[in-house]
């Protein structure tokens, strides 16, 4: 399990190196999908199976569909992947930065402590995070109302941003 966790953490860093090194939005969205999947794996290894499910549904089910639509809107005839020299240069620069960061801050790699929640090492559905998230409906009721209000406000922000004849989503042909 320790090696799987190390592999997942390195995968998260590599995926974000690729996202940060300015590829085209198609490949950037693909890298973000990979990072979100790896993050789901990290959460599962910590025992947060419900949080992992929520992250999977939100990122890969909802958000990335919208990003695919927007990548189709901002179409690029010559997408730049890892084959482009500038992307390669930025990948090398970010990898050097991460390596120096690891030399600075990760002097104590023996501090491994993978403690899953409820201290069950097997995969199971009813873990502590299910009850923890369910507390949102009892003690966190006020914050739940604030969250619903923020979502409603975001709806009106989107409607106001894409309103009108010049900047609207609909185009008069």
């Amino acid at each position: 399990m320790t090696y799987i966790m190390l592999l997942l953490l390195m995968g998260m860093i590599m995926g974000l190196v690729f996202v940060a090194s300015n590829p085209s939005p198609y490949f950037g969205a693909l890298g973000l999908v990979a990072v979100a999947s790896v993050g789901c794996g990290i959460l599962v290894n910590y025992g947060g199976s419900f949080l992992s499910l929520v992250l999977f549904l939100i990122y890969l089910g909802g958000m990335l569909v919208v990003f695919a639509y927007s990548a189709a809107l901002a179409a690029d005839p010559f997408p730049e992947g890892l084959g482009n020299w500038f992307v390669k240069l930025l990948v090398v620069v970010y990898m050097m930065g991460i390596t120096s960061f690891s030399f600075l801050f990760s002097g104590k790699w023996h501090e491994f402590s993978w403690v899953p929640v409820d201290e069950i090492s097997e995969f199971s559905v009813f873990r502590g995070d299910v009850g923890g998230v369910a507390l949102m409906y009892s003690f966190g009721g006020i914050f739940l109302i604030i969250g619903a209000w923020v979502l409603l406000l975001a709806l009106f922000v989107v409607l106001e941003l894409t309103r009108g004849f010049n900047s609207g989503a609909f185009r008069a042909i």
Partner: protein
Amino acid sequence: MTPVHFAFSSAFMLSLSGLAFYRTHLLSAFLCLEGMMLSLFIAISLWALQLDTTGFLTSPVLLLAFSACEASAGLALLVATARTHGTDRLQNLNLFQC
């Protein structure tokens, strides 16, 4: 610094530097913002999972709701930019001052 701390803090720093330094498309900047929110989500949920304080596990879900709001506002800005400027390249935003 444990490997998990190193991983999510370097993920946050990578996304922040990718947002700050050089972007061709506006959509890539939003992808970097999403990466920042993803690393924050993983950090805040691993904090509660490692310490077995399951009462704090509501906060990553609410953070995810807020990040969905941020993504929707960003995509609305992207649609508006593509309508007014024709493309979402950031050079055009400097070119036409409007």
